[in-house]
């Protein structure tokens, strides 16, 4: 993976000093909370219900064993011995003291990590495919482009005070593991008819209270023009995005109100101008970054044989291990969704173990997924059994990837000052209701996504089953939706009817699942059955 050079390190170190100065001014009373707020928000520090939350960037979801172990150290030293991995491949600490924040950032900088632009109305952490560099069908590794954009977007002076936050994803497969069409800008590497690789550019996707699947704004962008084109996209947004209403300020609203054709026309006009400015990185810089993502030294001639005689291991193998492009290697998915657990949480000890396993077995590299799990991307098949044993001993081997127990949930009212309802206890109740792993496997791929408010951090709009917590006359109430997808067949979930209490929604999910098992055709997922038969049978079973 990419390692900082002296320039990257100097910029991150400078940011630590800048934030230390800002924090000192706040603690000394030179800055009011109102004045400090935009400064701390630009550095991922939120004031939540009970304490400060610090969000740390994990660029494109890739980190080293040493970096993971540093996160464990911070959790142990400054937090309550755990951290929370988010749908944007970041890590959040929920119990941070303001006075500790500069020291935490200084420690992160020693392992080439930071919290720059993990909040605020600016370009956020760039997300990417957790199988990058390991998937057989990718055009090329998307991460060099994500790293180029990380650098370009870091303190980009023109785009630090956008109308609203701005999220970019870069992928290189047809199969989409990042919800690319739900980003403000989604970049998908593909080949044109001449066989050249370039970007398909989606602009204006998003969740929130107005969910949108992004339209294609450009079908093919030559790679060497990426920065000039994005400058044009962002400048049109910065100038003309709405600033009169917080809820209409995302770029999806601008694209929607202008229409994709008019937005495209304005971007192309600005792009003609930005191309004259020489904003793009030279090829030698792109080559330098790409060298940081050169394939690790895979061994040739390894066996693909795996001893499946342990039945529990075999179950885990079938659910959690994916095909790798190199013979003899595999991709391991580590579940952060144990039945009684909190989706996306990991303890310090678990983080340390994952870091050690990466160093020992996966070329010192881990990935965080948008579904809040962790991946070891390059593992020898002959090591799988030992890895499984180590994970199992640490409670990290639940074989539920993509199943009903693999729930995405936001922190909800247990932590978040924006939330209207709790997400975590509901996720736990649903996971417990379907706690039997044989039943989960029988149900197949079924993605439940839970948000505790309309901001949709739990991606409920993109859930096969989506649940939104709302406040109804002081009571927590849950709206149930069906038919969403955050994958390559992206779609928005549709509300089925009136909301439920916490127990009521668990019961309603149970009834919906029964409709599926009764009416499914061979090979159909829940989503496929819903799309084929429509909402009526589900509505009947739930409300009838």
């Amino acid at each position: 993976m990419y390692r900082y050079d002296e320039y990257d390190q100097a910029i991150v170190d400078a940011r630590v000093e800048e934030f230390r100065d800002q924090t000192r001014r706040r603690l000394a009373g030179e800055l009011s909370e109102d004045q400090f707020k935009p400064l701390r928000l630009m550095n991922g520090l939120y004031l939540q219900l009970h304490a400060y939350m610090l969000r740390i960037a994990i660029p494109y979801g890739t980190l080293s064993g040493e970096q993971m172990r540093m996160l464990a150290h911070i959790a142990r030293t400054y937090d309550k011995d755990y951290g929370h991995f988010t749908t944007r491949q970041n890590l959040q600490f929920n119990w941070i003291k303001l006075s500790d924040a500069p020291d935490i950032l200084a420690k992160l900088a020693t392992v080439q990590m930071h919290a720059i632009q993990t909040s605020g109305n600016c370009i956020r952490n760039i997300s990417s495919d957790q199988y990058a560099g390991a998937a057989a069908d990718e055009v090329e590794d998307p991460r060099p482009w994500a790293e180029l954009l990380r650098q370009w977007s870091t303190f980009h002076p023109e785009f630090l005070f956008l109308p609203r936050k701005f999220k970019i994803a870069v992928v290189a497969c047809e199969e989409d593991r990042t919800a690319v069409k739900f980003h403000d800008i989604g970049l998908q590497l593909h080949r044109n008819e001449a066989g050249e690789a370039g970007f398909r550019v989606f602009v204006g996707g998003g969740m929130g209270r107005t969910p949108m699947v992004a339209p294609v704004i450009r079908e093919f962008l030559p790679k060497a023009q990426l920065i000039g084109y994005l400058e044009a996209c962002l400048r049109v947004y910065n100038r003309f995005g709405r600033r009169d209403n917080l809820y209409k300020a995302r770029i999806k609203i601008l694209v929607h109100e202008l229409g994709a054709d008019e937005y495209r026309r304005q971007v192309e006009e600005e792009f003609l101008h930005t191309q004259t400015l020489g904003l793009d990185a030279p090829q030698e810089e792109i080559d330098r970054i790409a060298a940081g993502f050169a394939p690790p030294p895979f061994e040739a001639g390894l066996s693909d044989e795996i001893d499946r005689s342990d039945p529990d291991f075999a179950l885990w193998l079938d659910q959690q291990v994916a095909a790798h492009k190199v013979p003899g290697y595999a991709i391991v998915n580590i579940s952060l969704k144990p039945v009684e657990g909190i989706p996306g949480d990991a303890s310090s000890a678990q983080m340390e173990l994952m870091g050690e396993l990466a160093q020992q077995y996966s070329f010192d590299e881990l990935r965080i997924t948008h579904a809040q799990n962790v991946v070891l991307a390059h593992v020898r098949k002959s090591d799988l059994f030992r890895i499984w044993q180590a994970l199992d001993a640490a409670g990290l081997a639940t074989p539920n990837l993509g199943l009903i127990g693999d729930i995405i949930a936001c922190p909800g009212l247990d932590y978040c000052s924006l939330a209207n309802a709790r997400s975590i206890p509901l996720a736990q109740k649903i996971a417990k209701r379907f706690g039997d792993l044989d039943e989960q496997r029988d149900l197949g791929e079924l993605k439940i996504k839970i948000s505790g408010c309309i901001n949709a951090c739990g991606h409920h709009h993109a859930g096969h089953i989506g649940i939104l917590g709302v406040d109804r006359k002081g009571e927590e109430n849950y709206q149930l939706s069906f038919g969403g997808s955050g994958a390559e067949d992206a779609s928005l979930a549709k509300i089925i009817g009136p909301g439920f209490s916490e127990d009521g929604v668990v019961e309603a999910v149970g009834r919906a699942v029964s409709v599926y098992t009764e009416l499914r055709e061979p090979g159909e997922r829940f989503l496929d059955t819903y799309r084929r038969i429509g909402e009526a049978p589900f509505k009947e079973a739930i409300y009838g």
Partner: protein
Amino acid sequence: MGDLVRFRDDEAHEEPAVTLDSFLEQTNATAVRLEPTDDPRALLPFLGRLSLIEVSFPKFRDGRGFSTGSILREAGYTGELRAAGDILVDQINPLRRCGFDAILSDVEIDRAVLSRLSSLYGDVYQKTVDGRAPAWTRRNG
């Protein structure tokens, strides 16, 4: 009145800045003030004659002026480019990177803090109108 910080050696422009609409009507003015909704490209035919363009920042979180400044410098404007309004000392670095060489802040700017912040970042990642070499130029020197 506010606190004026200038990063250029010439005398501050004394003539009051007029609105864009007034400027376009009475073209002998040499100072103009742009609001966030004004199109800076309306000034492109007149840049050579202008000594001061003041760009309004009604709220610190309204970042439209950053694009306004960049557009004017990209078009070759060399006169004073002044950011005026609700401006935090911590915004002065990015403002300068977008071509602003004067700041008229509604509140007093702490010169000690400004001086510390100004010398903090020796390297930058982007090519902008301030002419600083981005890291990739220095790396591949």
